[in-house]
């Protein structure tokens, strides 16, 4: 029995250009929270986008398989693929302001997905939206349904997007840096909310972040990426106890900790960067397209 989401040797590239993902493999079980960590350009968001079928136009999947609930998405026709992803998976985006349409009311933005893509009746969709806004503890949900995004604070907008993501009971959620734009105190509330919703709904969660602190709180397992290559895949417990890959260890040593003034902020040594770049180059050795 394979995992609920199983990515096998996935490679993606800029059309006719360099590779962005280099034979990435990872599994997310039902109820599991897997973190995808790495620095900007490591390809962590790209993996989430590939799963959801929302890669930028200039990027194409060139090899590999994405098994979602027993079906390889990449073998489906585009329309069937979209329908399947829409019915099974959802996204919690990074920036709650750009993810919401400024000129439309919150209620419509949650229910449209249910009505247009999943074929719900409008009345049922509205009842469901209200129920979810209650569940994510938005105060006065009836009023919020009629509000426009600019009337809500950043934390409230992110709650709305979480409600929207969970509305159709997806079995997989991709959260792409969902708290990066928020204050630490609001971040804590939102992380707590995501963790609770994930546990209650038993969702598989792919959590993209650059913040190892957040990973240690939310995720059970993680994949560390560099240059589109998974350099380490492990449990959160093992990672923080003893990271296996030198690059992972360097990343951890660069992360500051307010409880320990001597820890963190150590630049990644040049030798570690050189070594991990060599690994990336080695992964490209049999790559025909350059």
């Amino acid at each position, binding site marked *: 029995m394979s995992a609920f989401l199983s990515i096998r040797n996935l490679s993606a590239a800029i059309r006719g250009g360099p590779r962005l993902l280099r034979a990435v493999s990872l599994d997310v079980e039902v109820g599991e929270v897997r973190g995808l960590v790495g*620095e*900007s350009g490591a390809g962590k968001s790209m993996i989430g986008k590939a799963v959801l079928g929302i890669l930028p136009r200039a990027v194409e999947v060139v090899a590999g398989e994405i098994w979602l609930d027993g079906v390889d998405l990449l073998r489906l026709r585009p329309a069937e693929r979209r329908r399947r992803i829409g019915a099974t998976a959802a996204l919690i985006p990074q920036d709650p302001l750009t993810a919401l349409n400024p000129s439309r009311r919150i209620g419509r933005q949650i229910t449209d997905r249910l009505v247009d893509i999943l074929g719900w009746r409008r009345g049922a969709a509205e009842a469901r939206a209200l129920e979810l806004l209650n569940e994510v503890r938005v105060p006065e949900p009836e009023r919020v349904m009629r509000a426009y995004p600019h009337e809500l604070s*950043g934390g409230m907008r992110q709650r709305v997007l979480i409600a929207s993501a969970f509305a159709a009971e997806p079995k997989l959620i991709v959260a792409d840096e969902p708290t990066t734009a928020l*204050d*630490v*105190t609001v*971040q*804590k509330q939102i*992380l*707590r909310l995501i*963790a*609770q919703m994930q*546990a209650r709904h038993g969702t598989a969660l792919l959590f993209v972040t*650059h*913040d*190892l*602190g*957040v*990973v*240690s*709180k*939310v995720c059970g397992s993680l994949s560390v990426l560099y240059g589109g290559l998974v350099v380490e895949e492990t449990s*959160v*417990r093992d990672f*923080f106890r003893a990271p296996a890959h030198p690059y992972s260890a*360097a*990343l*951890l040593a*660069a*992360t*500051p*900790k*307010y*409880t320990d*003034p001597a820890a*963190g*902020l*150590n*630049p*990644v040594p040049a030798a570690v960067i050189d070594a991990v770049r060599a690994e990336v180059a080695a992964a490209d050795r049999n790559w025909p397209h350059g």
Partner: protein
Amino acid sequence: MADLYTVSDLRLGLPDMTRKPLFGAAPRIGILHGLSFSVPKGEVLGIVGGSGSGKSTLGRVLVRLLEPTGGRVLFDGQDISHLPEDRLRPLRRRFQMIFQDPMSSLNPRRRIGGIIAAPLQLHGFDRISARVDEALDHVGLPRAFRHRFPHELSGGQRQRVGIARAIAMRPDFILADEIVSGLDVSSQAQVLALLAELVRDLGLTLAFISHDLSVVRRLCTSTMVLHQGRIVEHRPTDALFAAPEADYTRELLDAIPLPDPDQRWDLAAG
């Protein structure tokens, strides 16, 4: 040691344009509510707080990009709170700023050399080319980078250019407003290590605005916590982190996810 800044009962209000009547002035909305503190020479002051706490506004008053509506700001003994622009100009060389987003604070059409040279020319420095080279040396960028454009640099390198532009002026004081929040942890570590070294070597006084308390902990000698335009706590960094006195400081610290799975965080509760 002498104080570089002495701030007393600083107040600032800005016009609330959302409530401006069609005719007449907009009502003022208070941002800073009576701040008093001093910054000794050579100090690295961390200014922390949530969004909307007034930390950036305070920084902008210190370098007089904003004029206070009440109270006094003394810079090296001189009252700069209401100085007109022509009398501020000679002082401006002495307090420099490094910005959050190096992409929008570096002119995309100019080469790095021109970007660092521009303020030197404005302030009538001699040996400009040599000073640009020196500044690039200081921040650990190759001198050949003066011929490059900002888009040809990485985020960390761009932020080094921002630092080079500020230190080339030989300032007494540098305001750094969230300068590493757009960077990855590894470039963040490099930029902060560089900044700490420059502060020490050049005898600078630094105000470091950040929402990241872990970074402030590592870099700053004293820390000021702002909340809704008021100072809730301002003490030596070691003492403040060892035993935070204000409830708000404790709340901020408790909300930080440490890179440690054993930290108690109560994700399931509440």
